[in-house]
């Protein structure tokens, strides 16, 4: 067709247009192939026959304002051309996405309401890139988010994947509060707890010792002793545990000693040192959970710490000196048990090994 002919024929007949109306009422016409790139518009045209004239303009969702519409149409206009290479499309996308964050969010919203998935993917990736690696304050700044979490919500142990020092501190404070509550609870429930523990150990004892009745009295004594000890030691609970944890190296087999100390304790009663040890052993068992679920970063009062250190060293030394004889006595009661030998390490602490591994 010659140019003249083309001028005579109305442009609308050469190229078909779709009529679109945005939420503010303004109507515009867009080339068909460009508009049909949006699934939502496509659906309206095909299923409902809308958009063919001004009166039947397709009303776009509210999230699409004229500025966003023109951006989206630019995107469609480029990408609907089939012949472009992947490289070209990619570089267009890179340039296209350069806009301020506010517009980016609006564009995402508009593209989503038109169901234009490739554009939503592109903008979400851009938004993710903006968010990645930034601190919460920076993100709030960029996106104008209100800092409106209440104090208690902030106190809840948030999953601290970031090592954000603020969250770590909050977690610690909260954990401390929880611990205090628990300890107060414990003080109340001590009587009940102790009964239970003692009963179990008595049973074990009877079966282990095979009919040694002479010690029940001893146990009773130790129980009362324990109760008093507990009250006094309540404040030092976790600190003591910590001290023991820290001193694990020094008395090498301290844990083992403690465990077997329980046995020793139940058999031999009335010796000051061992009852103290029993307390600590109990504490280790009962408070194990607490140790695990809290970041123990607590600063212990240095004076208290020294006192505890000294105490621990003290009875560890005492144990090591007369422990072997005591163990032999204990073990001579239990015939079924495999004989376990204790020997002294170079530094004076105990080492336990089974029969087969004798030196």
């Amino acid at each position, binding site marked *: 067709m010659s140019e003249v002919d083309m001028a005579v024929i109305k442009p609308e007949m050469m190229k078909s247009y779709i009529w679109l109306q945005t939420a503010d009422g303004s109507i515009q016409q867009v080339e068909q192939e460009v508009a049909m790139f949006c699934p939502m518009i496509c659906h309206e045209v095909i299923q409902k026959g809308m958009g063919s004239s001004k009166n039947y303009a397709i009303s776009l969702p509210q999230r699409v304002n004229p500025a966003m519409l023109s951006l989206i149409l630019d995107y469609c206009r480029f990408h609907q051309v089939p012949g472009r290479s992947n490289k070209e499309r990619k570089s267009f996308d890179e340039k296209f996405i350069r806009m301020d*964050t*506010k517009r980016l*969010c*609006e564009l*995402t*919203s508009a593209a*989503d309401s038109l169901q234009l998935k490739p554009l*939503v*993917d592109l903008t*979400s*990736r851009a*938004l*993710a890139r903006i*968010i*990645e*690696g930034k601190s*919460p304050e920076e*993100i*709030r700044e960029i*996106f*104008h*988010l*209100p*800092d*409106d*979490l209440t104090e208690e*919500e*902030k106190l809840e142990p*948030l*999953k601290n*994947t*970031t*090592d*954000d020092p603020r*969250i770590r501190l909050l977690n610690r404070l909260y954990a401390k509060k929880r611990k205090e509550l628990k300890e107060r609870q414990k003080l109340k429930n001590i009587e009940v707890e102790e009964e239970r523990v003692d009963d179990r150990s008595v049973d074990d004892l009877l079966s282990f010792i095979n009919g040694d009745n002479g010690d029940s009295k001893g146990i009773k004594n130790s129980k009362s002793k324990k109760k008093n000890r507990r009250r006094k030691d309540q404040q030092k609970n976790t600190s003591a545990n910590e001290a023991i944890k820290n001193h694990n190296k020094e008395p090498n087999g301290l844990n083992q000693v403690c465990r077997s100390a329980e046995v020793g304790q139940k058999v031999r009663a009335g010796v000051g040192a061992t009852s103290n040890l029993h307390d600590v052993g109990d504490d280790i068992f009962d408070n194990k959970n607490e140790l695990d679920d809290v970041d123990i970063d607590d600063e212990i009062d240095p004076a208290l710490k020294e006192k505890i250190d000294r105490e621990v060293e003290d009875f560890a030394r005492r144990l090591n000196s007369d422990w072997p004889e005591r163990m032999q006595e204990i073990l001579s009661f239990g015939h079924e048990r495999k004989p376990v030998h204790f020997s002294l390490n170079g530094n004076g602490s105990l080492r336990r090994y089974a029969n087969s591994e004798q030196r």
Partner: protein
Amino acid sequence: MSIVIKQREPSRLPSKTDAEFDRISNLPGHVIDQILSRLPIRDAVRSSVLSRKWRYKWATIPCLVFDNHCFNFSSQDQSFIKNKLVNIIDHVLLLHNGPIHKFKLSHRDLLGVTDIDRWILCISRSSIKEVVLEIWKGQRYKPPSCLFKCQNLVHLELFNCLLKPPLMFKGFQNLKSLDLQHITITQDVFEKLISSCPSLERLTLMNFTGVTNLIIDAPNLQFFDIGGIFEDVSFLNTVHLSLVSIGLYVNIDNEENDARDNSSKLLRFFVNLPHIRRLEIQSYFLKYLAMGYVPSRLPNLCVDLNHLSIRIDFDDLEENTAALCLLRSCPNLQELEMLARSEEQSSMERSTNFWEDDHWSSLFAHLRLVKVSGISGVKSEMDFIKFLLSNSPVLEQLTVKPASQEGEWELMKELLRFRRASIYAEVIYLDP
């Protein structure tokens, strides 16, 4: 005169002005999911402290990726890192709320078997579609049987695992892509697995133990990539297979096999690959194909084959014969890549030219791009290049890359001299 009293700005309250400017928090849920899914898991979960609205937005993200990039640990203590990692993954899975579509676990630190079992159990309950499990340290990990009950699985990728599905396993009905590397699997389990996944389109198999005969029965398979040690490969019912890359990582001894089997491996290989488009023959696979009888040309030409890559020992007569058969059987070949394999015991340099310029005129009618690499300038290699240049009328580019700097100059001088059938041909020499 009016006195203007400047009012002090009120302190930053969560006022409605903020709400006006906050465009992101009110985006639809699935869009936020998309944004958060593209962040490393650490950043995604951190979003819970941004504001009240964002507290639980992360909990619906459909894909969870736990790999080396998602955590930064300052400590070097192994057990500390491991405990922290286990703790974090447990927390995330526990606090997550909604379907999980993709789960990737690929951390270089050793994780406990029971932990991984537990996590797989958790995700198997939530219509998982993609699972990527890379066990970097330790023995082959055996996934629990609950993994094999995930019927929504579309992509499964395992590294360093031992596959032993439960007896009741009837296959993955929706599995389209399977990627198994460094795995142990028995022969029948493998066959059953492949044949019971009817939708399988992509199969990758590298460094496997326990399977010697690869019998591939997959009607929808399009992409096939294997590398490992095996004795036999046969395709049954693979009409759509268009991309095949095979590497045989062990040098086979021809004398042993000659007596046993005289049938043609080459013929058997191609009998069920009518629509193959891209073929890569790596490592010693050409030697395998050269076993038995090698025809001068395949009975059914591979008309769709337009990219061929072969690793070949130019001094080996059988391999050259097999290569020639292949080259004659793909009339529409556009891209060719020949990678020279240098053997420790160099075979005798033959004085005859295998690639004698006889009647190959219609051989390379569509060949445009050729790449020859790993050569060292021996006669057999140069014969091939000469032959190629003088028989490819539409050649656009020949790239030559030697294996080392030895004899570079001689090689280049010879190259310069060769006749070229195509006036557009560029001969590009790359440094080793």
